[in-house]
């Protein structure tokens, strides 16, 4: 299981990495923005991507659209403060797999991920 975390906050990346580690997932790559994420995505295979929305250089929505042009199937979960219905609809139209509002608990992250990937026990 290989996961790509995309968030401009190092604090949030660490929180997510620790959640994944608690689930037994240790193969985790991190990107600070959409540009870096796309570069990493093109050079490695991932099972799932966890992406923030508001980031400098390339935001999560643009990243999502870029990823969907390259891979229609990889699960992308948006983890964001963008909780308004219009934003969620925009993300769904762009091909997001699931949506998680910050702050979140490890249990909710696990539940969202399990809809898309098999988490090793």
């Amino acid at each position: 299981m290989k996961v790509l975390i995309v968030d401009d906050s190092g604090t949030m990346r660490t929180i997510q990495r620790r959640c994944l580690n608690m689930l037994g997932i240790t193969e985790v790559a991190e990107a600070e923005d959409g540009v870096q994420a796309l570069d990493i995505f093109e050079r490695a295979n991932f099972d799932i991507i966890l992406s923030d929305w508001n980031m400098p250089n390339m935001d999560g929505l643009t990243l999502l659209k870029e990823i969907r042009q390259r891979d229609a199937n990889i699960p992308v979960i948006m983890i964001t403060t963008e909780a308004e219905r219009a934003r969620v609809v925009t993300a769904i139209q762009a091909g997001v797999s699931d949506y998680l509002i910050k702050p979140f608990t490890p249990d909710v992250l696990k539940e969202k991920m399990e809809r898309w990937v098999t988490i090793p026990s």
Partner: protein
Amino acid sequence: MSTVTRQSSELTSDCVNPVLNATKSVFEAMLGCTPVRTGIALKEDTQPRYEISAVIGVTGRAVGTIALSLKASTSIEILYRLLGIRAEEINAEVCDAVGELTNIIVGSTKAKMEELQLSISIPSIITSKGHNLHYPSKVQPICIEFDSEIGPFAIEVGFASNE
């Protein structure tokens, strides 16, 4: 008070409850403590209450600023509560933690004000003592003061119509 300033004050007042609710729920969920509101007042000067400011600009059908104002010790405790890292002084990790906490508070606030169709900026952190936060002249900011297990803090909010 002019009509424009009155409209600004009403918009700013409309933000108070969403800010209070978002602050309480984010502090409880992320830091494990419940902040208590200790005061609320119209802001007459440009100096924030404490030495660290995390500032987020808001645009949409309204424009404005929401700023979290913190003591250095409170900021350091935020990093500790989020990641278990004990910083000796204000550093990049502390600033990032404070910025992300503020981002989540402001994001939760704007979600409760959906009709204004707001977008928020990436947080900026100011760490110098005696700094000033300037709002547009027609904006009358409000300062909401809190106390908590990790120390006192304040949130400044100032909004004006963008229509």
